[in-house]
């Protein structure tokens, strides 16, 4: 054996170093002990020890969403992997670039129901972009290279590499491939001059245009192109839940988020437009509601997306443009610049007049004089105190929607939430990843008393690594969104949605060594937030006791159409 022969564990760590990985999130166990042993012998790749594997994946996810690098997680075989599944599925639904390394029982034990054995490749297959079981040490480095390549190119997504314990102990000469070539994987990045021309033709002929931009703009780093494109044309622009920050929310051309809890003006404009330009969005059920109702109105649709399978999946489109959102928008901008022609200005003016009428409906209004804390007010004050510049993660439910509606994101990658899978428990661990990727920035986790308890054990991780998160707990003693649906659609029968026997969150935070605050009076919200954000090196758990009866408006009931909103 020559001096350059490395063990599989050493090779794994060297690969991570070669990829420039600075942090990985994980939890040790039998099948990954060799890898952990090697991790401890170096300091380029720092390991963050979570308290549950689900949190490792969410943290890697938050890291990826708030930076330009894939997240990396390391878990052991069996329960390590099954605990990670929720996190992996969350990342998959939102197309987050991530590499998960899992330990596996030794190759000779695979299939024999060994201790802590699970068919990892089989169990993760439906919720990863791709996965690998490394059965030969000679393929380990090339496989890890492929994993990083696949996860971050084309439509991104999580890729899992399953490494049996004997492979991590076996030795082989290490060389890291400089490039990847796969005949079966060629992420599309072509230009379509004819399609671009056709799109421009529709844009120029439009009377009621609308730009609808989703998470693809954030993932594809195309925010500046989108902003330029929308502003050149003076068109209205809406963002999906995943796309918030893709277009500056404080700009006058922004009509707010659309969808189930979108603004009246965004949903009405979406329904009534005659030319729709969809950018990195996928017309999902929470965005356009009932596709039949959506198709009742005649409109031409231009759809820009990197994933061909997103085109004409739920809604038939007229001009599909497959490619990276930034390249396609660059192409459109180039044509617009060379073109003297402008869209029909008179019609555009009256379209804006119509939109302003819808805006005047003031669909997000709420009782600002209430003596009980209104959750919307907490988010408004949070926006004010952080000057709109914090990273905000959220869990899932009413608080998520209020954060999306009331925090005005002007920058991409600032709004971190589980949009596709809707994973309660995502907020706190993802905030850890965000804070690690952005150590100098303020990071707040907007959550509720139900969601936060799904991964509350991570308060311990936050203490270990001094992560000064600000936890904004909108505590209404209910699973608020469940309660809202029960109120609207199940005759006010609140089956199992009341959360009894809550902990004293202030004491709980203190027991982990953090700062706890309980806020019960609307007049105290702003001062409490200011005080919390002044504690720059402390995690502050802010327990806001909010109005139990507050609902999220507007709301499109399930199965209804965009213009069938329930308004306050």
């Amino acid at each position, binding site marked *: 054996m020559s001096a350059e022969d490395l063990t599989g564990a050493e090779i794994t760590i060297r690969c991570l170093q070669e990829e420039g990985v600075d942090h990985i999130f994980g939890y040790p166990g039998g099948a990954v002990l060799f890898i952990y042993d090697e991790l401890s012998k170096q300091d380029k790749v720092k390991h963050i020890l979570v308290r549950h594997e689900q949190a490792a994946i969410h943290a890697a996810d938050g890291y990826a969403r708030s930076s330009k690098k894939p997240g990396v997680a390391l878990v052991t075989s069996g329960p390590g992997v099954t605990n990670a599944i929720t996190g992996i599925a969350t990342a998959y639904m939102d197309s987050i670039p991530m590499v998960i390394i899992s330990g596996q029982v030794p190759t000779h034990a695979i299939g024999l129901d060994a201790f802590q054995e699970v068919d990892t490749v089989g169990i993760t297959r439906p919720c990863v972009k791709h996965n690998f079981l490394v059965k030969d040490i000679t393929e380990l480095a090339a496989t890890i290279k492929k994993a990083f390549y696949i996860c971050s190119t084309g439509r991104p997504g999580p890729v899992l590499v399953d490494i049996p314990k004997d492979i991590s102990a076996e030795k082989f000469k290490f060389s890291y491939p400089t490039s990847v070539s796969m005949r*079966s994987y060629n992420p599309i990045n072509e230009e379509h001059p004819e399609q671009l021309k056709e799109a421009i033709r529709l844009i120029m002929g439009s009377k009621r245009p609308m730009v609808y931009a989703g998470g693809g703009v954030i993932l594809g780093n195309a925010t500046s192109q989108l902003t330029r494109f929308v502003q050149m044309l003076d068109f209205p622009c809406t963002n999906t839940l995943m796309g918030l920050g893709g277009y500056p929310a404080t700009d006058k051309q922004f009509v707010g988020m659309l969808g189930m809890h979108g603004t009246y003006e965004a949903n009405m404009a979406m329904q009534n437009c005659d030319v729709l330009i969809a950018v990195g969005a996928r017309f999902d059920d929470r965005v356009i509601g009932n596709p039949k109702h959506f198709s009742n109105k005649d409109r031409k649709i231009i759809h820009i997306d990197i994933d*061909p*399978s997103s085109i004409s999946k739920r809604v038939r489109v007229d001009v599909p443009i497959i490619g990276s959102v930034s390249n396609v928008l660059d192409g459109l901008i180039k044509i617009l610049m060379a073109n003297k022609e402008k869209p029909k200005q008179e019609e555009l003016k009256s379209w804006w007049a119509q939109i302003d009428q819808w805006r005047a409906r003031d669909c997000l209004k709420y009782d600002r004089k209430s003596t009980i804390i209104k959750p919307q007010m907490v988010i408004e004050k949070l926006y004010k105190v952080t000057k709109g510049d914090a990273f905000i993660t959220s869990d899932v439910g009413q608080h998520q929607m209020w954060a999306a509606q009331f925090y005005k994101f002007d920058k991409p990658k600032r709004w971190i939430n589980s949009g596709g899978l809707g994973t309660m428990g995502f907020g706190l661990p993802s905030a850890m990843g965000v804070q690690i990727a952005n150590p100098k920035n303020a990071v707040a986790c907007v959550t509720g008393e139900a969601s936060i308890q799904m991964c509350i054990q991570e308060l311990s991780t936050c203490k270990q690594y001094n992560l000064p998160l600000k936890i904004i707990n909108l505590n209404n003693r209910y699973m608020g969104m469940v309660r809202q649906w029960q109120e609207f659609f199940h005759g006010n029968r609140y089956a199992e949605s009341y959360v009894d026997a809550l902990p004293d969150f202030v004491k709980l935070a203190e027991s982990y060594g953090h700062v706890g605050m309980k806020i019960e009076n609307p007049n105290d919200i702003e001062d409490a937030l200011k005080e919390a954000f002044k504690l720059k090196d402390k995690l502050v758990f802010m327990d806001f006791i909010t109005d139990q009866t507050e609902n999220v408006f507007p709301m499109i009931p399930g199965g209804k159409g965009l213009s069938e909103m329930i308004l306050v």
Partner: protein
Amino acid sequence: MENEAGALSRVAGLFSARGYNIESLTVAPTEDPTLSRMTLVTVGSDSVVEQITKQLNKLIDVVKVIDLSDGDHIECELMLVKVSALGKNRKEIKATTDIFCGRIVDTTDTSYIIELTGTCSKLDAFLDAMGHSTILETVRTGASGIGRGGRTLEVK
């Protein structure tokens, strides 16, 4: 697709996860041992077939997908049928087998095994001609397909 462990289950898993139908599926390595070729028969509206094609193309192990029914192609399936063959029936079965260009590949005092290849509808017609009471056992491979003439599924 890549001739790799798990490639088949990725395809099968995609169909069950997305609620698509598999009528039949055949797969085996090609002249290039690193590649497998699969013929999959499915039914669906144009938009469903379009989605199936796109989703299959997204699978990392899938090298290329074509819809053979888009153009001229040949499809062929192999069937083995064990039939009860007694008395004067034996002659009749032999005659029907000849009409369908099948071959009797095994015989006992009471049964034949017939080998038949052709399109799915030809095999169906043969089974109809034999009749339910005669058939003891049937095994079919599912269709394999190939484009006619210059229509070649090539991997660059």
